[in-house]
């Protein structure tokens, strides 16, 4: 049932991406709507706004969650594509090892960046 768990996580990661990407798109591109709603958000793409968001714990946490979800969703999809090319058992192990290593490295790198932006 390992494959069933991995596939369920893939779907769950897709839902997480949908939610957090919607928030991101809303903040970045619906400035007028957010202003009209009285949120006080202006100049979302400006340097000061970016730094201000990075200093908020809420955004740091969402960045890390979104990063984890996007990495898992994308790399699981890539694994599926590669496995459909019909590699042998050893090649499957190598592919999975490389993808896990790649995913973990990118996650650590992205998390360090998000935390560094928060604490500075």
């Amino acid at each position: 049932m390992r494959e069933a768990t991995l596939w369920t996580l893939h779907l769950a990661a897709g839902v997480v991406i949908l939610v957090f990407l919607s928030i991101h798109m809303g903040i970045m591109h619906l400035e007028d709507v957010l202003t009209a709603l009285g949120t006080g958000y202006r100049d979302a793409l400006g340097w000061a706004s970016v730094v201000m968001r990075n200093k908020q714990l809420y955004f740091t946490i969402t960045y890390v969650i979104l990063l984890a979800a996007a990495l898992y969703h994308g790399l699981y999809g890539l694994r599926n594509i590669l496995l459909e090319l019909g590699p042998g058992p050893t090649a499957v192990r190598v592919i999975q090892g490389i993808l896990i290593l790649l995913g973990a490295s990118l996650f650590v790198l992205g998390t360090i960046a998000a935390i560094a932006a928060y604490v500075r």
Partner: protein
Amino acid sequence: MCQRNEHSGQALSDEIVREVVFRVQRYSPGQDRPVTREYRVPVTRGMTVLDGLHYIRDNLDATLSYRFSCRMGVCGSCGMYINSFPRLACQTQILELNSDLVDVRPMPNYPVVKDLVPDLSQLFAKHREVQPFIIRNEQELEHPTAEFLQKPEELLRYLQFTYCIKCGLCLTACPTVATDPRYLGPQALAQSYRYCADTRDAGAEGRLRIAAGRDGVWRCHLAGACSEACPKGVDPALGIQLLKRLAVLRALSLKKPHSPAPVAGKRTGVERRPGIPQPPPPTVESR
């Protein structure tokens, strides 16, 4: 004026309504690559592609090889790739193709034995792999005393999947099978669901280990081509999605295995209605 087709036994009109060209892919073992041959075939009303192939073999080229048996869409032997779509030759009316050219090729995604005869051993091996039979750990299967009880609504959960005739057209249509030969494919997976959903069965756990493994249901891309191609109206794509759901619910422990349906007890207080005869004695001695 009618005559009877010597192969299909169907009443056919004598009147030739059209002449079509059959472009048939030919291949013999030892050849480097297949070649195509064209045959002019007079078409009468009600004539199927299989009838056309019979005409070619009887009148134009006796060396043409193709597989058929029942001629009525039951045995699943005459699956072919006709005008770029997987179909049963015996169910495909030539006039309904609305074309002067009938392109007939062996089913893709299978090795070819000769001409239009595919090697279906992979289909049957995959079918066997998913354990397509009732599994119960009890003597009742070997020495039955009565039937297993099942409600009509329980039967409806898997009924459509029992109509599979193992023609293999769904595997021909499946884009994943085309690229990944290890993928179990829509036929086997739909049959896996058919037995997992059967309340008389107690072997879903072992069956799911195979069907929900790496080469199982997760490789399906929801193209739906299998369901479109099925000549019996079965929806294997639906079976695969239902099997996915079952596997996920089991993996998350949200659905427990059902208790297998009980054996019907001995009937008491029921008498045969007057006038209904007794069944004949068994012709085979029970062990």
